[in-house]
């Protein structure tokens, strides 16, 4: 049998961020504290991107630094805060300044919009959102959602416009160079984003061999057929967590929450942790091997 060549879809973090042009619409993976594309957010800031629009269910520190740096000020989103730690400080300030534009959906609504994009149908039905201001208060979209009477049952049902973003960006624990991806733990809306975006970029904590993929096809959550680029970025979700690989850096997050209450504090954080470190390797050096080791997951628990 003629050996097929294994396609190597790897690019660097810098190259990935370069592909994402000013004004791009991005479906943003990760959910809550779990596997957000933090390293990408920081690199987009270093590359001075502007006018991005992000679609996601809920994201937190990663979005807040993008808002602080004014790389992204438009969101179609369900949730934006740092959960147990409080409201997102940059978001709060930039909203008061009148700079941020939201189109508000529920989590399920956003996840279904990604599913509709993956199925390549123009809309998805949902029973939720109806009866609330999410239906009638709009900012970015003319057609945010529509209520129709179901042609089969006669009852009202909401139709949501599907999302097929220019880029889908998600973080995984393992992937091979061809783009077969294995996500462990909760999946959030990442499976749908990966299948529904025009260009899908997966950031992986670790590259594994194609052989391992073929021995465990039941663990492949995103086949390479859906993936355009693979970026190997260890600790790519720091200061948040990646199940089974490392835990969140709580003291760092608490420092962030306190310091970024003021614009001055945020500018200091921006310089210290993003602009003054040359790249992701520089960031890892700044965090330090000792701290990274402390954050590494105990394999018995996954955090």
């Amino acid at each position, binding site marked *: 049998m003629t050996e097929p060549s294994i396609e190597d879809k790897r690019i660097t973090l810098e190259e990935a961020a370069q592909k994402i042009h000013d004004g791009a619409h991005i479906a943003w993976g990760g*959910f*809550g*504290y*779990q596997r957000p594309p933090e390293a990408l957010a920081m690199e987009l800031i270093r590359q001075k991107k502007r006018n991005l629009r992000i679609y996601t*269910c*809920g994201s*937190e520190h990663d979005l807040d630094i993008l808002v602080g740096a004014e790389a992204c000020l438009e969101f179609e*989103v*369900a*949730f*934006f*805060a740092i*959960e*147990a730690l409080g*409201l997102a400080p940059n*978001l*709060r300030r930039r*909203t*008061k300044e*009148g700079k*941020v534009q*939201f189109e*508000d959906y*529920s*989590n*399920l*609504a956003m*996840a*279904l919009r990604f*599913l509709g994009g993956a199925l390549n149908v123009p809309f998805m039905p*949902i*029973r*939720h*959102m*109806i*009866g*609330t*201001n*999410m239906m009638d*208060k709009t900012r970015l979209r003319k057609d945010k959602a529509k209520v129709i009477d179901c042609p089969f049952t006669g*009852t*009202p*049902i909401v139709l949501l416009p599907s999302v097929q973003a220019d880029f889908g960006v998600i973080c995984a624990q393992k992937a091979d160079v061809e783009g077969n991806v294995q996500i*462990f*733990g*909760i*999946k*959030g*809306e*990442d499976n*749908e984003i990966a299948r529904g975006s025009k260009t899908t970029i997966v950031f992986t904590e670790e590259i594994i061999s194609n052989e391992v993929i073929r021995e465990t096809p039941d663990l492949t959550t995103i086949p390479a057929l859906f993936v355009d680029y693979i970026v190997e970025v260890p600790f790519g979700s720091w200061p948040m967590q*990646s*199940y*089974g690989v490392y*835990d*969140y850096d*709580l003291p760092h997050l608490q420092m962030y929450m306190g310091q970024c209450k003021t614009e001055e504090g945020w500018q200091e954080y921006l310089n210290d942790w993003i602009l003054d470190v040359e790249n992701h390797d520089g960031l890892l050096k700044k965090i330090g091997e000792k701290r990274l080791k402390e954050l590494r997951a105990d394999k018995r*628990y*996954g*955090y």
Partner: protein
Amino acid sequence: MEEYTSTEMMAVCGANAVRDGERVFAGTGLPVLGAMLAKVTHAPNAIIIYEGGNVDTQNKDLALSVADSRLGYRAAASIGLIETLGFLMMGGRVDVGFLGAAQIDEYGNINTSYIGDFDSPKVRLPGSGGGNDIASSAGRIILMFTHDARKFVKKLDYLTSPGHLSGPGSREKLGLIGGGPALVVTDKCQMDFDPNTKKIRLKSVHPGVTVDWVNENVMFDLIIPGKVPTTPEPTKEYLDKLHQLDPQGIYLGKGQK
């Protein structure tokens, strides 16, 4: 008599609202503490579902996020949002959901999105997250938040998640399958909903709180029954178990007990 804080009282009231065998959707913070407390006391077969995707976990540590890796420990399954908020929640398979609120009106409609005018808001709150999904389809809703008169408003700045909307029949007309809000737990009292009007009604006041105080700290006409009982105090068993669940005082606060 045990000493307890108002936070502990809220967690115990939340726990008491969960019945054995129920499927519970709980966010981080006091709601999940309440649900976990129920599970280690009177409702051992309650199943807790986290919208991030972990279901029926046996987590040993408290989580800071509904997506926290801590919730993956000994989970029966680690799935996705379409599963939890779609197949389970919109599928009508969840008995009770916990929610917070920044504003609530007399029908239990809630706002978690904006304070102030939508076009130039004073504060951007977290938004719906899964809140609208839970409020729309869970069998019944338990609301938990600290008592502040500014939260109990005649008119919401923004309606994020449906309560009983404009009263009896209005949820059904829109095809919402969930039963809507059933209980409000604050640090001062418990409220339920009048079955005829679907309006908020005082159910019990916590020890040391007067009915008048509650009535003054609600900005709409609260239904107050002729006789308002006092909320039973938390037992030692419940308080002890509560602190075993949050030994570091992440949600209960430090050094208060």
